């Protein structure tokens, strides 16, 4: 991994009395390559490596026999800080129902994650309601209904000829009438540059005032993550992030850009296709994964 690559870079530094800029460059280059390989945003990498360089020089570790391990430790610590430090708990409204809205690009795992969240909420003694507002994708409503059956959770839907805003509003009324305490609104995948669809998402939010708007991000997303995250946050407003498909081998560095532009915590991670494949987010583990 990175430690081994740094061994080579640092081997040249060990005999020296004073270090020049170029000496440190080789080590910093290895860190830069490792982070880019992990899909960390190009600009984030530049700022990050500059910070690590300062810390490493400041801590006077570079000529140390254990320099590679010590620098990796600094990188790891800095990553954990950027990832949000402590795992975050889910908060519920004191005036039920708590309303959660899932948004994101096409195919990131929103519908499946709605089912996982509903399953988890049931295990926490909550009474969730799933809401099908994707009136566009073929069989999307069917998909959420199936997911609801598997999770043994009711699904509110009004077919595909009613506006998503109207479906969301009626779903919240339905939840209040039935004493269901968490409403999970699944929305259609949409491009952050599709103005009409971004307006629709903002309209759904305005209509039902979700307590949590969660951006669902695919762990294999590359440099484009920063663009989508910025637009979703500006147009809709994001309260938290769910990172999916972490059961693969994507390093997941895109999460750093998403964290940076939204400033919001990662609330859960998806680790599989089944409805029990949802875990809390551990910044320490994620840092290790990004470093490879």
């Amino acid at each position, binding site marked *: 991994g990175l430690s081994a690559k740094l061994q080579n870079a640092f081997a040249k530094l060990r005999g020296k009395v004073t270090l020049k800029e170029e000496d440190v460059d080789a080590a910093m280059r290895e860190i830069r*390559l490792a982070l880019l*390989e992990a*899909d960390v945003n190009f600009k984030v990498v530049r700022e990050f490596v500059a910070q690590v360089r300062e810390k490493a020089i400041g801590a006077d570790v570079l000529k140390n026999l254990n320099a590679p391990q010590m620098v990796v430790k600094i990188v790891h610590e800095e990553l954990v800080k950027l990832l949000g430090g402590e795992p975050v708990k889910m908060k519920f409204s004191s005036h039920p129902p708590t309303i959660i809205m899932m948004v994101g690009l096409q195919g990131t795992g929103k519908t499946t994650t709605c089912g996982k969240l509903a399953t988890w909420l049931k295990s926490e003694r909550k009474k969730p309601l799933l809401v099908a507002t994707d009136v566009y994708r073929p069989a999307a409503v069917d998909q959420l209904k199936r997911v609801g059956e598997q999770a043994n959770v009711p699904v509110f839907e009004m077919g595909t000829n009613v506006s998503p805003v109207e479906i969301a509003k009626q779903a919240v009324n339905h939840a209040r009438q039935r004493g269901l305490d968490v409403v999970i609104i699944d929305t259609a995948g949409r491009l952050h540059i599709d103005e009409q669809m971004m307006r629709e998402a903002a309209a759904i939010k305005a209509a039902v005032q979700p307590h949590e708007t969660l951006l669902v991000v695919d762990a294999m997303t590359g440099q484009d993550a920063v663009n989508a995250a910025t637009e979703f946050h500006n147009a809709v407003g994001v309260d938290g992030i769910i990172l999916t498909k972490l*059961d693969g081998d994507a390093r997941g560095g895109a999460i750093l850009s998403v964290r940076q532009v939204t400033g919001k915590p990662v609330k859960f991670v998806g680790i599989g296709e089944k409805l029990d494949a949802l875990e809390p987010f551990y910044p320490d583990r994620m840092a290790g994964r990004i470093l490879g």
Partner: protein
Amino acid sequence: VFTTVTLDEDFIAELEETLVLSDVAMATTEKLIESLRQQVKKERPETIEQAKALFKREMARVLGTEPAPLQFSPQPPTVWLILGVNGTGKTTSIGKLANLMKQQGYRPLLVAADTFRAAAIEQLQIWGQRVDAPVIAHRPGADPAAVVFDAVRAARSRGHDLVLVDTAGRLHTKHNLMAELEKVSRVVERETGRQPDESLLVLDATTGQNGLAQASAFTQSVPLTGIILTKLDGTAKGGIVITIADQLHLPVKLVGTGEKIGDLAVFDPQEYVEALME
């Protein structure tokens, strides 16, 4: 007269940034830039535009200049296997591809071999209705290989010259799922006497470096013949396909540019490079 261009490190830095931000791997980027430096020494361009033209030529070495054609079988039915990780656009691409091929006079048969995911069969069936192409399906939970076996038989007996096989999304790290895919490919081979005429990896343009891992892993299970690059209507450039072309010599054959039936086109390497350099 060409010193500005040969050693203009700003130009190089900008080029590097363009490529990396487009998800081209760093190793590929450095290789392309190094080739460019060699070309600049040889050709001595006098303007930035001329240097850019040299770079486009380097890209053409990797991506080719002509679209890579889709392969058909001399003996119908032609079978195309559509595969890839979860959520990349396989099912949607099959709907669009069936439409494209119908316009060219083919009679496609769609195969709902994703028997796992909720409403996957229904999703393909709706596309079948939209395109007016029949869909072979079993129940959810059925063996995908059995569905494909039926489909190839049905294609022969009903005179379909093209079979499009939709498979479940699967992460390449899951060995049992990759084995399932190999079994589907073997069934095609047994029934037609040859490997699928196309085994197309559907890759989402927003995918970063993992795209290379996906292509490398999938091709070891089912030899890939090409890529369908989807969601190019977004802001992502899918530059990992340049790395894949360079390292695995696997061409992009089709691109998805939206969610509607007509949003599929043949991949044009020259157009793609132009768009990348904008």
